[in-house]
């Protein structure tokens, strides 16, 4: 059974990221960031064996291999230069799990800039692929530092549009939009409410609902009868620690 005393927060978050891909079947699993990447590889190594995933360079490896080791042996099953990645984005056969510097109650994501985009206080990564991802295929988010600075009332720039923007846009343009879940260091969140406002899906073991509410600058739904995020199984802990991330690179995202 689960090793409750042993699993640490980074491992719980890896499993919560892996769970984002449950049910996806044969699509491109495209996590960005260390915890998401370990999570994506874990999903494929366990309950979603049909997923394909990128090596973040230009091929799809068919084997399990560790993060942060460019020399790890790869069994190559296909070639996906960036042009092909964009083609896959537009085909819809992809689920991206990426970061969000800011996210609001509708799931609007900002990775572009803090302040006015014309001359930002802080230039961040930019829009990157977020605008295209959100209107073409499933998206999930990973926020390692849940606070009122990341879970905000209103984002400064919308890189990845959320449910309010999609409602405004309407059909048919919104038909591929699906923000599956948000994983933070405090809990798991989704948009399965009547009006697609963010709700608490689970809190991580040891975290209280009050802690989550205090660290969130908007009203969260689903505060009654909150369940705990599931713990990693022994097999998952083994895969995370021995196979997918033996150097513990995932821990660096928690600061």
């Amino acid at each position, binding site marked *: 059974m689960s090793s409750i005393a042993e699993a640490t927060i980074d491992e719980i978050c890896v499993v919560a990221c892996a769970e984002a891909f449950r049910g996806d079947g044969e699509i491109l699993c495209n996590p960005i960031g260390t915890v998401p990447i370990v999570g994506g590889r874990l999903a494929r190594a366990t309950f979603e064996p049909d997923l394909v995933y990128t090596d973040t*360079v*230009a*091929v799809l490896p068919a084997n399990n291999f560790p993060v942060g080791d460019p020399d790890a042996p790869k069994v190559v099953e296909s*070639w996906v*230069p*960036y*042009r092909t990645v*964009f083609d896959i*984005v*537009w085909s819809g056969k992809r689920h991206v799990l990426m970061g969000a510097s800011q996210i609001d109650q509708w799931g609007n994501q900002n990775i*572009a*800039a803090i302040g006015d*985009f*014309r*001359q*930002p*206080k*802080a*230039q*961040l*990564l*930019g*829009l*990157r*692929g*977020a*605008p*295209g991802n*959100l*209107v*073409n295929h499933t998206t999930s988010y990973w926020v390692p530092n849940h606070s009122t600075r990341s879970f905000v009332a209103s984002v400064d*720039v*919308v*890189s*990845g*549009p959320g449910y309010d*923007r*999609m409602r*405004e*846009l309407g059909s*048919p*343009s*919104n038909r*591929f*939009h699906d923000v599956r879940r948000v994983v933070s260091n405090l809990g798991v969140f989704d948009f399965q409410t009547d009006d697609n406002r963010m709700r608490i899906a689970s809190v991580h073991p040891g975290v209280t609902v009050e802690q989550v509410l205090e660290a969130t600058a908007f009203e969260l739904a689903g505060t009654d009868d909150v369940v705990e995020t599931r713990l990693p199984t022994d097999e998952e802990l083994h895969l995370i620690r021995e196979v997918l991330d033996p150097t513990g690179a995932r821990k660096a995202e928690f600061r």
Partner: protein
Amino acid sequence: MWAGSQARAIVAAMVDKRMTEDEVVSELKDGMTIGIGGWGSRRKPMSLVRAILRSDLKDLTVVAYGGPDIGLLCAAGKLRRAVYGFVSLDSIPLEPHFRQARQSGAIEFTELDEGAFYLGLLAAAHRVPFYPTRAGLGSDMLTMNPELRTVTSPYDDGEELVAIPAFKLDAALIHMNRADAAGNGQFLGPDLYFDDLFAMAADKTYMSTEKIVPTESLLDEGSVHTLRIQRIFTDGVVEAPRGAHFTECPPDYGRDEAFQREYAATARDPEAWEAFRATYLEAPSHADYLKALEARS
């Protein structure tokens, strides 16, 4: 199947497009729109970028999946506008000189979704005014770029899409692993990126290369699938060994991470920038730059 060196005798005499970095720059003018190939800190034509840095060129618009090319041009005050899908050093997620230029308002900018950017190149390459995409609907990409328009599908679905305008380029600069003197280019690494589209989208394309080889040797190191730059789209070929340094150019060499860190640190330190500029950017030729690199170790 494909004749190699045994066919030497029957290769017809082809045009010789060899030139130097400074000869390339002498064909560029103030205010031009210049596309730069590669991706982030990967296979950038850095010897050509440095030749622009030491020239009098100004008010340039650069179109790129940006890396240190855009960063250096920002730092040297050469840019009026940057058009990009992102500007990153890969191992350093945000280009520090670009960050500074954005935060100080030093440059105008056109920031697009990464995939939408590909369509701007593709439209220019195909000489159509735009390509439609769903990317951008609902996000602030349209707010940030009020000149972007949407189109309505002429078919029964009537779907509204973003029309990404063609990136018409006055010139393009790309770097290939191998090329012949006639301007056929070859990539030997894992990804061509969008260099073929840059070449097709530009009025003039200048290609630097690690090594110029005889045409009949082009298949010695890679399969026919690696011959992705055709000479009908190139106007000049510059032999520049380590010409992409400090960006990566596999399989010839990886990224010089130590050098990149030193470059990145100059964004926070004007004195360090001056020293970097004097040592590496004022080197009068690529050969002198390589000597300065050698002196580091």
